[in-house]
């Protein structure tokens, strides 16, 4: 079974669908991603991270919520637009946004352009790096590492263009759907939903 279509089929819309209230803030996704992709062992380098959002309810009582973030693989990616060399690009066939490290000159324009702080600079590769939606795994029939390990089963992955996919069904049944910073016009492919089971 392959999650992604092999060449020739250009109509996939790969997306991460995160059921927000199932995230328990365990950071398993962070750790799985960092080990699978040998992301630099420093705090500033990560492809996904989970924010603790502390707040207050209407009565002034404290609240806690968790927000997993990663590259949104935007349909209108500012990072790609600003890249002077074409190292940052978006795949036509499935929408994945990637950085080709051979072509990256390390100018970091994309890091500045990304409204989501999704990118980091990897000194050892002399290249900007970021979430790949685990393309190497997908291409070998495996789900993304962060999805596989997700303890709360908050993270889900698949092709929104396939009505039979898990994510398409979840989006259909969702009671609310949000994306981050919609006002930036980036058209993210990471969705945060609530759903009644």
């Amino acid at each position, binding site marked *: 079974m392959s999650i992604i279509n092999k060449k020739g089929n250009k109509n996939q819309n790969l997306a991460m669908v995160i059921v927000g209230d199932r995230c328990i803030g365990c950071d398993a996704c962070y*750790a799985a991603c960092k080990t699978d992709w040998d992301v630099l062992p420093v705090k500033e380098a990560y492809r996904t991270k989970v924010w603790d959002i502390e707040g207050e309810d209407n009565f002034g009582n404290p609240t*806690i919520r*968790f927000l997993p973030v990663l590259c949104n693989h935007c349909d209108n990616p500012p990072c790609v637009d600003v890249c002077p060399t074409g190292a940052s690009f978006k795949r036509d066939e499935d929408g994945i946004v990637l950085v080709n490290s051979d072509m990256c000159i390390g100018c970091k324009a994309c890091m500045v352009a990304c409204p989501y702080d999704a990118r980091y600079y990897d000194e050892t590769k002399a290249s900007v790096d970021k979430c790949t939606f685990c393309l190497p795994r997908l291409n070998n029939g495996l789900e993304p590492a962060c999805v596989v390990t997700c303890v709360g089963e908050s993270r889900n992955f698949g092709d929104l263009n396939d009505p039979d996919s898990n994510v398409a069904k979840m989006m259909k049944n969702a009671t609310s759907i949000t994306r981050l910073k919609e006002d930036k016009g980036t058209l993210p492919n990471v969705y945060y939903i609530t759903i009644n089971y």
Partner: protein
Amino acid sequence: MSRHNLTRRGFLKLAGATGVAASAGITGIPSPLKAAQSNDAKSEMFLHYDRGVQSPSFCEMCFWNCGLNVYTRNGRIHKLEGNPLNPNSNGHLCAKGNSGIDSTYDADRIQHPLIRVGKRGEGKFKKVSWEEASQYVFDKLSPLMKKYGPETLATFMHGTGEPYVHALTKALGSPNIVVPAYSQCLGSREMAWILTFGTGVSGHETYDMANTRHMILFGRNMAGALQVREAEDFAEGLARGAKLTYVDPRLSESCVNATDWLQINPGTDLALALGFIHVIIRDNLVNMDFVSKYCYGFDQLSAHVAQYTPDWASNKCGIDAKTIERIAWDFAKYAPHVVAVPPRRMTRYGNDTQTVRAIAILNALMGNWGVPGGLWVRSGVPIDLPEYEEPKQPTTRRADGAGKGEKYPLAPQNLGRTNGMIEATLTQKPYPIKAWMLYGTNPLFHSSAGTNDIYKAIENLDLLIAIDTQFSDTVMYADVVFPESTYLERDDAPFVQKDKIPFIALREAAIKPIYDTKGCFDICKGIAEKFKIAHWFEHSPTQQIADLYKALSPEQAKKLKDDGVLRFEAVDPYPLASGATPTFRTATGKVQLYVPNLTDFYQEHGDDFAPMPIYKDPIMADSKDTFRLLFGKSPRHTHARTQNNWLLLELQDDNPIWIHPKDAKRLGFSDGQMVYMVNPKTGVKAEHAEKIKVTKRIKEGAVFIHHGFGHTTKAWSRGYEKGIGDNFFVSDDIDPISGAAAFNNGFVTLVKA
């Protein structure tokens, strides 16, 4: 910097980008460069993924033991993933499990056997052979055992190799085995459940949270003190619409979806539970069908709790009476598909067994035993497993006060009391304890006896033997150190779990030991050989795996080989729902709302041992600038053992002191300010200052920190002195029934740094 406020924008500047200016300049590059390669060519580097060789295991980053597939490329482990077929974790791993690789490749590990050369605790050792290390144990331990009797040896153990340390200690003739999981964690909870239901909750709890309609968690932080299947079930139950009443002076991770958070006064959970019971009985909400058939002592209970009205409870626990009534009604409304959950580390205020008794009673009144959404009934694996003869438990008197005729007659002899053993070593009473053997335990950072007392206890020892994978704080004080191979480098005996879906899991070495280390079996056997008792060590873990295969049918054997785990699904976790008659292994054969077997103790020792829980006020701080120290677990660390793991440290390398805004204001503290924690009773001041986190998430009058930080071991190049530790400040009170520790009666003051 804490994980809460780190943004990469700052890093970006440090890393030298000048933002818009830089990008503006660079966009001047001629555009042909942009289209130099096709998308296909550019994708090429992303199309390969070598998963490598898969070997079966189970995780040992904590003691829940999730199912693991270990992936190795060119002889190096590159990834750990959950085994989807293992019922402990269903394919998931937490952050700790995912970070397990570093346990093996960490250069700070103990790399070969060692004998101390410097002063105790100085950390100076010489490299020796295995032969020399075992001979050293023989040469030092034999005269001590001759002089003081074999019981002068006490062993502390935690980990998969426990059975071998257990066997070695018994074969050497000492009864003094202690497993900290009892007196430092689960003891009071187990005791209460056994007195009520006839069986313990065990380390793998039986709450059916995935199917429940309303769960009340009494300080049980399912999401934070995280064990994977439980956390999965918790998230699943909530996603399906279960209600969650979360009771804790602190708003923890588990509150993310709570229907109600009851910010209770510390130490008063028993009052709240009794209040719930009162309402449920008063308003005729008891599942009388279950209670009349299967429970003992309902009439006594009804009379007993008449005094514990919601108003009374409210006055004690700080939750208003209307809320207590509303939650009790809602809980009963969904019975029997409800569950009231006691904490896991139930070593808190010294009334812990009785508190869990009340929680157990709350479950019993709902009749949730053996029904979906309540308490499932675990089953053993339905095959005859190979059996191995073990040395008998010596009948010599134990030194720690556990067992019949002792101060803690109900405390189990096979688990013992860590707190009692440390005290016995400190006082050398009832008889001299002159030698310790530690397996995977770190009493200096895990104990109630007050770390200062443990240093003194260690001074009384003539021999300290350590078996460990890493230089914990206490290992630094050892005279002889046996380096253990990690869970990724060794075969272990098959893991057999009684559960909802009972199963057997395999652990096979994914790689050869990278240093000069051995499994616990071989270490114990090496020592046993010197004492001529090696006949107890004839079945190595590898042999035990082979023996298991012989006991299985060919189909079962194939499944185990292919999957790394063998599940037995044809058991019924919900016997009551299926119409079976449940049996309870209590003194009365029923669920004991009233415990007749406590009556004698009650007469002898008074209220603490009452057959039905009697409320007692908690010990309070003596001034309003003295705060109760509460501590709990971080989902990013296991106890005091992972604070040198680079990836987990990246996730949390500090331990801010949580304090309520009103308290902070009164003391003139602001968020992020550095303070010293002081123990007013002992005068001990924390080694280094820590920042405070001003938050309404903690109750006024209490402060909170995570457990496991503040290490003194200099061998930990990354974890040394990160964050502050709780161990210098917790109390050494004792629960009178279980004999387990009560840590949370410790009080601290804070001083500006």
